[in-house]
């Protein structure tokens, strides 16, 4: 359980970091290291060089601007979780964060790092997706914004190009009066989700909007579009909850694994969708 050898550099400016990454196709970016270092210790990854971005100027902190919570690359999970302004702007983040590993991991792990690692069962990618957020990358070709819907591609695979550093994640502020919920099932607290659902309910008279995402059930975090459409068309009735639960089952593509069978995950996801929407609904105004 020791990492393979690598070159290490700790640039001070984003320009230097971008150049270092562009110069070496098998280099990797190191932020908090809470996903990358286990992968190294288990020899799942063997980069030629690690570019530690903790000292890069301008990559720390959180700002709320233009309807977005802008989370810079070195922002630790715990920092975002405990930020009261962030809680007021998007309470879904704090509710979800309680499920992300444990406090000592959240103290060091970064939100952007988790998004880039893109574990299909990780919680934060699913939050970026349900809020219609995005990430911003920097490369020698300039800056680029990638919507969450295009960013997550497959298990541990994103649409980030090898020479791009993700410098920010943008989590939209929740609309006024929106209800939210994050419902997860794991066997032990802090584990990756066997299945989890994030829900946002925005009530606007005849045009209620329900946004739903799930993680742990497919090869990437997914939007449960069919379930969203059922609630939009039928409102919140016993029949619509039942129909949405049944529809959710069809999204489960994860094969049987050591944690759960495909059948079990299908039932689980149906229950979690119902629970999450019920809870979000009671919190909406």
């Amino acid at each position, binding site marked *: 359980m020791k990492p393979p050898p690598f070159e290490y550099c*700790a640039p001070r400016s984003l320009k230097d970091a971008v150049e270092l990454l562009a110069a070496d196709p098998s280099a990797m970016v190191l932020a908090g290291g*809470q996903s990358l270092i286990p992968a190294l210790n288990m020899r799942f990854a063997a980069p030629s060089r690690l570019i530690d971005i903790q000292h890069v100027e301008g990559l720390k902190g959180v700002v709320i601007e233009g309807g977005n919570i802008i989370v810079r690359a070195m922002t630790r999970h715990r920092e975002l979780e405990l930020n009261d302004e962030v809680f007021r702007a998007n309470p879904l983040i704090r509710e979800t964060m309680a499920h992300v590993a444990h406090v000592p991991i959240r103290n060091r792990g970064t939100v952007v790092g988790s998004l880039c690692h893109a574990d299909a069962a990780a919680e934060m990618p699913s939050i970026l997706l349900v809020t219609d957020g995005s990430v911003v990358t920097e490369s020698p070709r300039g800056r680029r914004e990638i919507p969450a819907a295009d960013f997550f591609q497959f298990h541990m695979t994103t649409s980030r190009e090898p020479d791009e550093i993700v410098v920010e994640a943008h989590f939209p502020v929740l609309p006024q009066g929106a209800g939210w919920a994050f419902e997860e099932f794991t066997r032990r607290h802090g584990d990756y989700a066997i299945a989890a659902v994030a829900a946002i309910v925005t009530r606007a008279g005849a045009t209620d909007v329900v946004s739903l995402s799930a993680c742990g059930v497919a090869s990437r975090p997914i939007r449960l579009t069919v379930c969203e459409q059922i609630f939009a068309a039928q409102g919140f009735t016993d029949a619509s909850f039942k129909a949405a639960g049944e529809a959710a089952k069809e999204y489960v593509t994860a094969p049987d694994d050591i944690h759960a069978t495909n059948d079990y995950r299908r039932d689980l996801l149906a229950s979690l969708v119902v629970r999450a929407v019920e809870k979000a609904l009671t919190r909406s105004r």
Partner: protein
Amino acid sequence: MSRAKIRAKLPTKSADPTVDIELTVNGERVSAEVSTRMLLSDFLRHELGLTGTHVGCEHGVCGACTVLINGVAGRSCLTFAAQAAGCEVRTIESVANKDGTLHPLQEAFRDCHGLQCGYCTPGMIMNILSSFNSSAPLDLSDEGIRDIISGNLCRCTGYQNIIAAVRQAAKAMSLG
């Protein structure tokens, strides 16, 4: 047929790339040249001889290697020594008073029988101290304490006595 001879001459120096680091460990300035891939846990144990920090799983699950990095709990097995450059690291060796008398949290672990084999204890103590010092509200209900220690595995106690120890220490330290 004779088997190949075991290599008689081992290299005296690692071929690993190295990095110079300077950091504070338990209040003392330390500078060293370390392999880039040296984990903070190995640096503390093998280079500084601070063997109170225990190593269990080396992939962040068990919590035995938890230390304070700039005042907050972190896994030393998921941190490179190079990343800790410029940081203030505190290990279990810094918790008791200089005269050997125990910290109230250590006292509470002893009083409540919060340990048996003791392997997880240094990580538990550092993690709990981090929670005690955190700006986040301290929840001393059973559920709250379980959440605090949820990232530390103990195979002996069944956790009940650790929960009692955390509560007793928080009371002794007038917290919560």
